[in-house]
Structures are given as structure tokens and as C-alpha cells.
């Protein structure tokens, strides 16, 4: 249809070069634009309520991204996810309550402990396959919740622990920037892992366990790496959130919390990492701004999970890919 043009050696184009560089990091200009908008937003928006909403969206979005790191790639849905988030929150809370450790170091501690528990959970599932792995993680998550409720002397049971803020003068805006930074860094790290040989192994295991094993991928090793990593990240974010909301209760470890993260991650599209973040920014502000919707929150999450599972498993990520391909093809370019 189009004229064949003579091949030209392209001049080094700074924008193309930048794009290529960003691409290796998994970033793109539209995404960075979104980040930039969020970053300059606090200059114009001073309402604490709105800013808290964005922090919450970032929190859920980051968790959905971490969830997707296991769920979307090695195809193992961690049903005890909230248990690990809550474990991180409890560790961070207890470290800042019972020790004089710097809260930032406390976060590292929370990350390490949660990663370790994630590693041990991974070990428990070594002999298990498919749905049993999800069941096991569900049971582990529930055990963590039951422990948080039962260990009244340490965790104060259902009354929860009051957590001091990271530092006295912290504002919502700083929370927003810290979480935004954390989200970006985590995303780039997770993306680089996914693009590496390790990530290839993850996807191989996720797509076909037997074939992956037959072609020399050690499923146990990669399952453990993936699971410990995602639990450690969940613990880190959970620990930070504990300082943000100021109280941790066993409710944080509840299945309904896993449901929210899981729904966001699947709405975002399994295997897309960023999809969950966008889904969080679509859903959470809407729920919170309409008081009446807040009560229906879990119904909407559940329904959208059901509908996504039945009708459009690709989710937002899949929709974005389709849109990109559509735009490219209408411009006459080959979809990349």
C-alpha cells in the first residue's frame, strides 16, 4: 500500500534514544507523564483528604503490582497476600514500639522478616502444585491473622497497635512522594527481573510447569526466589502503611484485604505489573469520593473480578496493548 522508501541511516535522535533507554527500564513517556502529573499535583491540591486518597491509591496499586509479580508470571495466586502485608505492618509497628530502632531500619527489618516468612512458605509449597499452592498460601495467611489475634500480649489482639509516624513532622505530601518513589523503584526492579533470564524462567514455569522442568528450569528455585521477593516487597509496603495509618489491627491481614488487591491486580491485567497501579487510581478515588459507593466497595471488586475472569481476562493491560496496536495499525505502522 505504501511506497517503499530508500533505507536511510537514522540520525541519532535524542528522543528515540531516550525512549530506548526508558524501554529497558520498562518505562514509557505516557507513564512518566502520569507520574509527573501526580508529582506536581500537591502544588495545586491542598486538601488533605484528596492527598490521602492518592496515597491510598498508590499503596493499593503498589501492592497489586507486587501481587502480579507472582500471580501474573509464575501463575501462582497468593491467597494469603494480606497476611504478608500485615506481617510487615506488625513487624514495623512492634519494632518502633518495643525498640528504639530508627523507623527506616524498622522497615528494612519488616522487609527481611516478611521475606523470610515468604521463603519458608515457599518451602512449604515445594511439593505442592497448582491449586494446592494457593490453598497453602491461604492457610498460611489465615494462620498469620489468627496469630495476630491470639497473641494478645505482643499484638494487643483485636485492639491493635498504635504506630508512631516515621518522623514527627511528616506530612501527607511527603507520604505521597515517598510512596511514589517506592512504587517507581519497585516497579523498575521488578520489571528488570522480569526482563532478565530469571524472569524468563518465571514465565516458563507459569505457562507450563512440566515443559519448563523438562527444559532444565528448576521450578523450586525460581518459585522460592519469586515468592520471597514478592513477600519481602509486600512486607516493606505494609510496614510503611502501618506508619501512615497509625494503627495495625488483625483486620489488615484479612482475606477481604487480599481480595481488594487481587481484584485490582486482575482488573489491571495479569502479567502487566503497572495495570494494577492504574486500576487502583481508577477505582479507589471513585469509591472514596462517593460516600455511598464505599459500602458497595467489596461488591464492586468482587463483581469486577467475576466479570473480568469471565469476559476479559486480559484486563486493563491487555486493553492498553490492544489500543497501542490499534493506533499503530491505523497509522500504518506494524504493531510492535
Amino acid at each position: 500500500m505504501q511506497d517503499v522508501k530508500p533505507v536511510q541511516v537514522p540520525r541519532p535522535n535524542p528522543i528515540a534514544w531516550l525512549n530506548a533507554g526508558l524501554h529497558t527500564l520498562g518505562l514509557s513517556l505516557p507513564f512518566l507523564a502520569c507520574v509527573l502529573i501526580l508529582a506536581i499535583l500537591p502544588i495545586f491540591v491542598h486538601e488533605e483528604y484528596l492527598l490521602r486518597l492518592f496515597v491510598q491509591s498508590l499503596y493499593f496499586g503498589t501492592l497489586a503490582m507486587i501481587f502480579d509479580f507472582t500471580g501474573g508470571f509464575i501463575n501462582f495466586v497468593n491467597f494469603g497476600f494480606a497476611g504478608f502485608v500485615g506481617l510487615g505492618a506488625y513487624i514495623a509497628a512492634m519494632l518502633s514500639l518495643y525498640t528504639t530502632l530508627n523507623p527506616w531500619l524498622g522497615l528494612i527489618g519488616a522487609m527481611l522478616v516478611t521475606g523470610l516468612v515468604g521463603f519458608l512458605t515457599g518451602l512449604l509449597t515445594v511439593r505442592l502444585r497448582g491449586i494446592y499452592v494457593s490453598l497453602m498460601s491461604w492457610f498460611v495467611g489465615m494462620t498469620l491473622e489468627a496469630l495476630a489475634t491470639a497473641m494478645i500480649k505482643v499484638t494487643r489482639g483485636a485492639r491493635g497497635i498504635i504506630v508512631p509516624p516515621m518522623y514527627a513532622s511528616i506530612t501527607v505530601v511527603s507520604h505521597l512522594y515517598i510512596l511514589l518513589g517506592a512504587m517507581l523503584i519497585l516497579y523498575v526492579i521488578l520489571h528488570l527481573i522480569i526482563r532478565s533470564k530469571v524472569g524468563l524462567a518465571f514465565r516458563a514455569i507459569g505457562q507450563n510447569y512440566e515443559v519448563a522442568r523438562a527444559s532444565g528450569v528448576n521450578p523450586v528455585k525460581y518459585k522460592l526466589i519469586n515468592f520471597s521477593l514478592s513477600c519481602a516487597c509486600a512486607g516493606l509496603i505494609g510496614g510503611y502503611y502501618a506508619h501512615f495509618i497509625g494503627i495495625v489491627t488483625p483486620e489488615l491481614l484479612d482475606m477481604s484485604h487480599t481480595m481488594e488487591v487481587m481484584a485490582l491486580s486482575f482488573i489491571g491485567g495479569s502479567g502487566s505489573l503497572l495495570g494494577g497501579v492504574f486500576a487502583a487510581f481508577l477505582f479507589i478515588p471513585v469509591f472514596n469520593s462517593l460516600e455511598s459507593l464505599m459500602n458497595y466497595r467489596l461488591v464492586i471488586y468482587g463483581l469486577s473480578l467475576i466479570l473480568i475472569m469471565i469476559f476479559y481476562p486480559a484486563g486493563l493491560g491487555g486493553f492498553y496493548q490492544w489500543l497501542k496496536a490499534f493506533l499503530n495499525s491505523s497509522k500504518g505502522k506494524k504493531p510492535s
Partner: protein
Amino acid sequence: MSISTIQNLLVTGLLRGGLYALMAIGLALVFGVMNICHFAHGEYYAIGAYAAYFAFAVWGLNPILAILIAALISFLAGAITEKALFYPLRKLSKGPWVMNAFLLTAGLSTVLQSGFQLGFGMQYLGITQYWNATVKVFGMNIAADRVVAFGIALVSIAGMWLFLHRTRTGRAIRAVSQDERGAQLVGIDLDWIQTLTFSVGSMLAGIGGASLLSLNPAYPFSGSAPLISSWFVVTIAGLGNVEGAIVGGLLVGMFESVSYFLLGQGWQTVASLVLLILLLLFKPSGLFGTGIKSVWE
């Protein structure tokens, strides 16, 4: 522990276990026939409890009638769910069925729980008793309700056994659970069998919820504890093993009443879950697992 305490524990464990067995059979059926790890099974228990509450306490019907109505309503709820959700999922979804169905039930569980919350509020809708009487068992006075509930569980289990083994439809259900394609080849209508299985499974949970109404009032989240217990039973028995679920139910009932007595409320849950994890770790196919490798891996 004195003899009478032990006796007491054993009897309460037995009575509890009968209903766990009932619920677990529903779970095992749904699992064995449809390959669905049913995460929303507890919500049908709650549907049964709500239906029985309205039939008995609000409309003032006879207890047995109330339980029958609850069974019917949960049966219908199961049928509607299957036709509205799992049927389209089966036809449309190309992904891994077991995982997708599991996620779908997780979504369903949330929807139903929040639905109860919006429809009936957060209050406990309970009754003090169906029958104002006590029965003497081994010299202990036990509320008639518990004994009747146990009786209902036994009758339903026996009925299920007869249905599965003696009727054409029951045999068809078992055929589908053994080999789906083979069953289809000999002319069994898969869609019908799957809808029926899901409805019957939900009905068993509903009967459990209805007959235990005086002990566990209807509440949006009243299904969670029975769900965990019935998963416990099914894990012990081996996923999809209907006969094993009966023995497993009684075992779990005993274990829970003993650990409740020794450890108290909070730690009892921890103990059950730890035991469950250990079981899954060492005997993934369950104590009575048949060792048949099935589709649900």
C-alpha cells in the same frame, strides 16, 4: 480431665462433626465433579441460615418445614449461581479453568458477603431454639436442637449416598467426576449434571446453616468459620473424596472441640490451621487420598 469432661468433649465433637461432614460433602462433590475449589461454600451456609431464620422466626413456620425451605432456597441459589457464572465461564474462558474458577468463587464470596451486609445489616439474626427440649445422652443433657441437627446431617448424608449410588442421575454425577469426556461419550448431559451438582452442593451447605441456626446465628460472615472447617475436612479426606469427608468431618469435629477446651478460642484457630498446613505438607492428597492424579493440579 475427668471422665465426664472427656465424654462431654466427645459428644460435642461428634455433633459438630456431623455437620462438618455434611458441608464437606458438598465441597467435595463440587470439587470432584466440576473441579471448582469452592471458596464461597460458606456463603451458601449463610443463605441457608438466613432462609431458616425468616421461615422460622419471622413467618413462624414449623422447624422442619423451615429447614426444608432453607434447603430449597440454597438449592435454587446454587442453580442460579451455576447458570449465571460458571456456565459462561466454562464456555468463554480459555485460561486455566481451576484457577479461574477459584478466583471467581473468591469474587462471589465477597459479593455475597457484602450483599448480606447490605440486605440484612450487620446484626446477628438468631433464634434461641427450634425445639424447647433436652435429650439425655450418656447421662448428659443436650439441647434437642443439636441432636436433631446431627440427625438431619446423618439423614442427608445417607440420602446423598443413596442418591449417588442408587439413582441414574447420581451415577451420572459420579461418572462425570471420574471421567468427564467418557461421561460425555456415553451421552451424559454435562451442563445439566454440573448445574445439578453445584445446586446439591449448595443445598448441603444450606441445610447445615439452617439446622445449626440456634447455635450460630445468621450473620453476613457466618459462613467463614464453617468454610474453613469444611476445607479442613476436605483436605484431610483428600480433595473430591466424598466418603472420606464423612470420617474427616467427625475427626475434625472432635479435634476442634478438644483443642477448644485445651487452648481456648483464639489459639484453637491457630492449632487447626497449623495442623491443616502440616497435613497439606505431608499428605497433599489427604489421609484417604486415592492417589489418582487429577485435573485439579
